[in-house]
């Protein structure tokens, strides 16, 4: 698989991009889901109900 051989520089760059993507997914995916759900749900819930386990 000669076409899969990268230079060290490219490998480092890809690894760095994957590292950033991992951090992005780690801290961004759950907020994304909440944003999607909050903006698209019908009726739109209040923010306090969204996050607090106690609010009814």
């Amino acid at each position, binding site marked *: *698989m000669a076409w899969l051989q990268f230079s060290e520089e490219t490998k480092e760059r890809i690894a760095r991009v994957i590292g950033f993507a991992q951090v992005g997914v780690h801290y961004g995916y759950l907020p994304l889901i909440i944003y999607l759900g909050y903006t698209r749900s019908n009726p739109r*819930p209040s923010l306090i109900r969204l996050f607090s386990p106690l609010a009814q």
Partner: protein
Amino acid sequence: MAAATPLEQPVPVVPAGALPPIDVTKPGSISQPTPRTGGIFDSVLDTYRSFQDRRAALGLSNPGTVDNIAAEVQRNVFLTNQTFSGLRAELNKSFSIAPLFQISHAFSAGSQMLSPYTFLGLYGTNNTLCQAQLDSDLSLSGRFNQRITDRLSFKSQIQIQPSSMAGPGAAQVSLEQDYTGADFSASIKSINPSILEGGLTGMFIGSYLQAVTPRLALGLEGVLQKPGGGMGPEAALSYAGKYKGDDWIASLQLLTQGGLQGSYWRRLTDKVETGVDVNLQFAGGNPMMGGPKREGVATLGAKYEFSRSIFRAQVDSQGKIGCLLEKVVAPPVRMTFAGEMDHAKNAAKLGLAVSIEASGEELMEQQDKVLPPTPPF
């Protein structure tokens, strides 16, 4: 031009009289006439089409997937994934039905497996499912599934543990393509694929299950593991078969590396289901022990569905007894009691969980009017 002559030879075509009569009552069993192109493609297409017509005339249904070949026993009857220990409290909030939007807070105490607090969010439409679960030690497990067409769907899963005192961070990604055909299921799955460590590395799983008759389905699954760092690839193949009776299902899975798993599920009445599962290992295990390790576990389980509760019990040949009782106290409040005794190890586990469904009154009214979406789980 001499090289082109073999192509022009007529391809043997099955004569139309030899085919079984096509069932005209089923739509789709008759193919549309397509424009003749002239040449070799017509005969190839005719053969293909007559094959498809005969296949459709058999009236087979989708057999499920190889992964779920024993799901009736292992997921429905047994308490494999549902047992827990310690105290748990769960608060589920539904905010919307279409699109599906749910948030869940789970608190847990006295368990080594579950973290003290877990926050879960789920968003689903007919074509998309997004789910993420964040524990109080900041480890995330997320799923993203997308239905590309009616039959083809893409599923991905990610698990990230941050680096902490206990160890370095770790991440696992799995990507899966599922095709659900009319009478077969095929999927390709890759776990942690990478091209950085010299060639393609990771774990790749391909599986295929085909309905042969309306009751019998046969399939196989191949696993290819390519670790990096100069180690050679490892491959394993397993064969699977499933037979569906009127009120029973039997399945058998043979791992060529030395394992056999058989299961039998039966519905005794419409409220009671039972299942038996036998797992035999002929080889593998720890190579340090010397010689192939032989062991087997047989498990017997039963599930009773009462009007407001579900009771599951199971006993296995290693001396483990377990039971799980789910009871709906009032419609929004559900209690679960789990108990397990391991006689061989002289250990016991007890668990009690309370789960509360909180949804607004507007949602209750909506529930009857709006059809909930079916995200690709």
